[in-house]
C-alpha cells in the first residue's frame, strides 16, 4: 500500500456568520490514494466546494485531521501551506483563472515561479507541458486569443507542471460546451491514467460523475455515499462512508503509477520527454513529502 495522497479523518469546517456557527462540513472522512480518479458530486450548498478547498490546502479544517501529501495541514503555517499547495496540488477551476495579460506559456510556468525555478527552465517545462495538452502551437497566445477549451487546457497544463500528487478540478467543464467539455474530460482522464496523478473532480453533472471510477456524494456537509465502500454505487441513501476511513482493498492505482520507479532525473528532462513524470520521479531532490514510489516501494 502506498501513502495516501490525501487523508481526511472526521473533518469539520465551521464558519462564523454574524455570530452564528454554520457547519459546511460535519465530520467527513475519506482517503484518496495515488492515481485515483474520483468524482465528488452534490447539489450546491452541500459542502462539496468546501471539501475541495480543504483537500487542496486552500483552507484549514475547524476540526478533525487532514493530511495532504503526508503533512498534517492543521500544523502548518500559511507559508508552509502555500508551499504544500505548490508541491502537491494542481487546481483546475471552472472559470479557468488564467492571468489575462500573460502568455499561455507564462501562465503555465506561474507555479514554478513560486518554486524558485529559473526563467529559462520554467519556460522549457511549461512549453513541454503545453505540448502535452495539445497546445504546443499556442505557447505565446494570450488567454483572450484562445477558445474556452484551449484556455482550460492551459489551466490543466498549469496544474500539472509542478508534477502534483493530486489534481483538483472544480467543475472543469462547467463553462464549456458539451463537445469541448468532453475533450477536456478525455484529456484529464488520459493524464490521470498516464501520469498517476490522482484526479479529484467536483461536479454536479451526473453524466460527468459517472465516468469516474469512484464517486463520492456529498450532502448537508456529510458524505452520503462513497462507491469505494458502498458497492455497487448507491444513489446517496447508503450508510455514511465517514464511519470507515480505512482505504478499500481494491487496487485503485492505475497502471504505470505504481511504486518502484527509480527516483531522480532532472526537472527539465521530466517535462521535455513529452511524458508526464511520475510521482516517484519528482525532480526536486529536497522533496520532503513521503508520498509514493520511493518510500513505499
Amino acid at each position, binding site marked *: 500500500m502506498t501513502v495516501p495522497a490525501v487523508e481526511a479523518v472526521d473533518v469539520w469546517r465551521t464558519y462564523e456568520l454574524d455570530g452564528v456557527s454554520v457547519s459546511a462540513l460535519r465530520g467527513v472522512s475519506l482517503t484518496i490514494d495515488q492515481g485515483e480518479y474520483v468524482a465528488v458530486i452534490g447539489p450546491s450548498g452541500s459542502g462539496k466546494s468546501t471539501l475541495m*478547498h480543504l483537500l*487542496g490546502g*486552500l*483552507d484549514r479544517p475547524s476540526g478533525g485531521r487532514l493530511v495532504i501529501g503526508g503533512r498534517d495541514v492543521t500544523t502548518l503555517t*500559511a*507559508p508552509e501551506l*502555500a*508551499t504544500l*499547495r*505548490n*508541491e502537491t496540488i494542481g*487546481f483546475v*477551476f471552472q472559470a479557468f*483563472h488564467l*492571468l489575462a*495579460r500573460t502568455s499561455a506559456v507564462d501562465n503555465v510556468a*506561474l*507555479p514554478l*515561479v*513560486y*518554486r*524558485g525555478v529559473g*526563467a529559462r527552465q520554467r519556460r522549457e517545462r511549461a512549453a513541454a507541458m503545453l505540448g502535452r495538452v495539445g497546445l504546443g502551437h499556442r505557447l505565446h497566445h494570450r488567454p483572450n486569443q484562445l477558445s474556452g477549451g484551449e484556455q482550460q487546457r492551459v489551466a490543466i497544463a*498549469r496544474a500539472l507542471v*509542478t508534477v502534483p500528487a493530486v489534481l483538483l478540478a472544480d467543475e472543469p467543464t462547467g463553462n464549456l460546451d458539451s463537445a469541448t467539455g468532453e475533450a477536456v474530460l478525455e484529456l484529464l482522464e488520459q493524464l490521470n491514467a498516464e501520469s498517476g496523478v490522482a484526479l479529484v473532480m467536483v461536479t454536479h453533472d451526473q453524466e460527468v460523475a459517472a465516468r469516474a471510477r469512484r464517486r463520492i456524494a456529498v450532502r448537508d456537509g456529510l458524505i452520503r455515499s462513497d462507491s469505494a465502500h458502498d458497492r455497487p454505487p448507491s444513489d446517496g441513501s447508503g450508510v455514511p462512508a465517514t464511519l470507515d476511513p480505512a482505504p478499500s482493498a481494491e487496487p485503485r492505482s492505475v497502471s504505470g503509477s505504481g511504486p518502484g520507479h527509480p527516483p531522480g532525473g532532472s526537472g527539465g528532462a521530466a517535462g521535455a520527454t513529452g511524458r508526464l513524470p511520475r510521482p516517484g520521479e519528482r525532480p526536486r531532490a529536497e522533496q520532503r513529502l513521503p508520498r509514493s514510489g520511493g518510500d513505499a516501494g
Partner: protein
Amino acid sequence: MRLAEAWRVAWDALRANRLRSVLTMLGVIIGVASVVILVAIGTGTKQQVEQQVEGLGSNLLLVVPGRIEVGNAPVVSPLDLSDADAVSRVVGDPGRVAVTVASGATARAGNRSDFTTVQGVLETTPSVFTRSLSRGRYLTGADVDTSRRVAVLGDSVARALFPDRDPLGQQVTLAGVRFRVIGVFAPLGQSLGVDRDDEVHVPVTAAQRLWGTQRIDGIAVKAPDRERIDELGERIVAELSRRHPDTEFSAVTQRQILGVLGDILGVLTGVLAAIAGISLLVGGVGVSNIMLVSVRERTREIGLRKAVGARPRDIGVQFLLEAVLLTSVGGLTGMALGVGTALLVDALSPIPAAITWWSLALAFGVSAAVGIVFGVVPAQRAGRLDPVVALRAE
C-alpha cells in the same frame, strides 16, 4: 519568488494600466519636482547673496547706531562727520573709512526722471567697498571738501536718464538741485530682487546741504587684517559710545551679515521645501489609494497565485514593489523635471537656482520611502487575503 521576478511582475502590472500609473505618478512627479525646484531656487539665492556680500569688499566692518537684529526698528543716527574723523583716528588710516547718508530722491535730466537712492559719501568709497566705474571718474577729496555738486550715477540710473546720450558732463537735478555727472558705475546686478545699480553717489557734504542735515547714517571701515577685525570693531564702538553715551552702536562683519542672511534664507528654503513636501505626501496618498484599488481589482489573480503556491509574503512583496516602483519612477521623473525647470529658471530669469546633490538624493529617497509607507497597507491586505474568498471574487 525571486526578487527580480517580483520586479518584473510589478513592472508588467504598471504597464498594463499605463494611463492610471502615469496619473498616479503625476502626484509624486509634481511633489518631487517642486521640492527640487524650490530647494534649487533657495540654494541659488543663498549662493548669490553670499557672493554679493563677499563681493562688497574684503574685511569690511559696518558701524551703525542701534543693534543689528532682525525686527529691530532703525535708530535715528547721532553720527556726523566728526565721528568719522574719530573712527579714522582709531583705525589709523582715513583711506579705510567710508560714510554714507542716503535718501530717496527723484533724479531728472531733460524730460526724463527716475526715483533713486542718493548716497552722500566720501571719496574713499571705491577703495573701502569694491566698486568700479565704467566711465568717467569718481569723487575726489576736493569734491567732498568743497561740497561740489558732482554725481556718479549707478548703471540703471544712467540708462534711465540718458538712454541715448553719453551722461558724462550732463546735468542731473537731484531733489531740485543741479549736479554734473562725472562718472558712471560698472553694473552690479540684482540682490534679492533689489537693483543694486539704482543709486547716485554725491559728496557727503553736498548731500548734507541738499537735505539740510549734519548727520551721517553709518560708517564703513576696511579693516587692515582679518584676524583683528573683531577687536577693531570693539575699539570703534567704544570710541563712538564715548562720544554718544546715549546711543548703542553695532559693528558687524560680512561674516555676521552672511550668518543672518543665511539663517533667513535657510528658513525660507525649508518652509518652501516643506510646502512642496506636502504635495509629495498627497501624491503618496494617491499611490496608496490606487494600490488598494489594484488589490481589489486583482483579487482573483491574488487568489490564483496563492492557489498555485504564492506565500503571503510573495504577494505582499509584489504589491509593495509595485507601489515603490510607482513612486520611484515618479521620483526619478520628478527629479528630471525639477532639474530641467531649475536650470531653465536659472538661465532665463533673474532668479538664481542651484542644484544640490543632497536635494536630489533627499527627493528620491523620500519618494521611495513614500512608496514603502503608502504601499504597506495595500500590500498587507493583499498578502492576507483568504485564497478561497479571493478566488470567488467577481
